[in-house]
C-alpha cells in the first residue's frame, strides 16, 4: 500500500459472492471492472451492471496508469463475442450497455469492425437499450472511427486521461493528447447527434491551469459529457498517486465545467468513465446535469 487512504476512498462491499460473477464467467465475457481493479466493482456488480471489455484481455498499449495486461495478441476477434454479449445484456436486463475494449494495434482496423458488430447486434435485438462505446484512438484512422460511429451507439467515449504535459509520462507513446482530441472531434464531425464523452484522471501531478486547459480543449472539440475521477494506482506496478483530491475539489471543477458548456459532468474521487453512465446520458437528454 502506498500510503494511508483518505476517508473518502472507503467503499461498502457485500461480504458474499455476487451473482454477476458467475454469469460473466459462464459467458466468458471480460469486464474492465475486473481488469482495472475498479473500486466500484462491488457497488456496480451488486446493482447488476458491468462494463464489458471487448477484443480480449491483452492490450497492445502500455499506459502507466492501467493494470490491463500488455502484449501483442495477434488473434482475430472472437466471432461469438457479440452473441455472448447480447445474452449477458438480456440476462442482466440492462437498459444501458457500456462497451470498451483493449487497444488492438495488431489488427488492421484496430478492432473497429468487431466493436461495430457488437453494437449493431445490441441495437438490432434490443432496440430499447442504449449503447455507449468507450473506444481506443484507432491510431487516428478516421475510417475505423467511422465504422464504430455508423454502427449506432448513442454515446461514444474516448478518454484524454491526463493533461498535455503529463501525457508522454502517463500514456503509451502511441497515444497522444492531440490525437485523442482529434478522435473526439472526428466523432462529432461524423455524427453531430452522437453524445461524446471523455475522462480525466486527477492526482497524477497535474497543475490547476493544466486541468483547466484540458477541460477547455475537450469542450472545444464538442465533448458533451466530462468525467473527472481520482487516479488510483491499481497495483505497485503502476505510477504512484501524487495527490488525493478531496471531494470538494471535484465539485468545484464540475461546477466550472457545467458553466463552460458541458451538458453533463460526473466528478468525484471514485468516479470512473462508465460509473453512472446511464444517469449521465439521461442528464444530457434532459438538458441538465
Amino acid at each position, binding site marked *: 500500500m502506498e500510503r494511508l*487512504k483518505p476517508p473518502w476512498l472507503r467503499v461498502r*462491499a457485500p*461480504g458474499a459472492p455476487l451473482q454477476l460473477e458467475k454469469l460473466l464467467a459462464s459467458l466468458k465475457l471480460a469486464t474492465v471492472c475486473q*481488469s482495472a481493479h475498479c473500486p466500484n466493482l*462491488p457497488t456496480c456488480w451488486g446493482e447488476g451492471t458491468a462494463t464489458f471489455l471487448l477484443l480480449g484481455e491483452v492490450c497492445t498499449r502500455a499506459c502507466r496508469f492501467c493494470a490491463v495486461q500488455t502484449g501483442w495478441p495477434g488473434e482475430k476477434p472472437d466471432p461469438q463475442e457479440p452473441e455472448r454479449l447480447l445474452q449477458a445484456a438480456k440476462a442482466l436486463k440492462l437498459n444501458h450497455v457500456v462497451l470498451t475494449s483493449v487497444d488492438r494495434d495488431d489488427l488492421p482496423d484496430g478492432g473497429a469492425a468487431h466493436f461495430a458488430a457488437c453494437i449493431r447486434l445490441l441495437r438490432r435485438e434490443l432496440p430499447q437499450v442504449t449503447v455507449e462505446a468507450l473506444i481506443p484512438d484507432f491510431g487516428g484512422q478516421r475510417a475505423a472511427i467511422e465504422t464504430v460511429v455508423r454502427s449506432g451507439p448513442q454515446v461514444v467515449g474516448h478518454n484524454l486521461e491526463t493533461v498535455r504535459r503529463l501525457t508522454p509520462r502517463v500514456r503509451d507513446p502511441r497515444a497522444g493528447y492531440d490525437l485523442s482530441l482529434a478522435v473526439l472531434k472526428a466523432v462529432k464531425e461524423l455524427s453531430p447527434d452522437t453524445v461524446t464523452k471523455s475522462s480525466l484522471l486527477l492526482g497524477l501531478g497535474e497543475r490547476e491551469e493544466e486541468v483547466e486547459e484540458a477541460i477547455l480543449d475537450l469542450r472545444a472539440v464538442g465533448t458533451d459529457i466530462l468525467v473527472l475521477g481520482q487516479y488510483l*494506482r491499481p497495483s505497485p506496478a503502476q505510477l504512484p498517486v501524487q495527490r488525493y483530491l478531496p471531494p470538494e475539489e471535484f465539485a468545484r471543477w464540475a461546477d466550472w465545467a457545467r458553466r463552460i458548456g458541458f451538458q453533463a459532468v460526473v466528478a468525484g474521487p471514485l468516479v470512473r468513465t462508465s460509473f453512472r453512465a446511464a444517469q449521465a446520458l439521461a442528464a444530457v437528454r434532459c438538458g441538465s446535469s
Partner: protein
Amino acid sequence: MEITVPALGEVEEVTVLQWLKGEGEEVEAGEAVVEVEADKAVFVVESPAAGRITRILIGAGDRARPGQPLAELQPP
C-alpha cells in the same frame, strides 16, 4: 455461512485493516464487520446475513484473496 473478501476482479490480495465486530458478536444483514484494503480503496465489508460471528479466520494485518472466507457466521 461465511463472510468473504468481496469480489474485486483481478485484485490479487487485500490486507485486513481492522475488525469492527469480534468473535461471539451478533450482526445484522448488511452490517459493517471488517475493513480490508486494496491498492485502490478501502472496502468496508458487510455481513451477508444476520447471525453470530463464531470464528475470525483472518486477523488484522493479515492478507487474503478476493472470495476467501474472513470469518464464520452462524445464522440465528
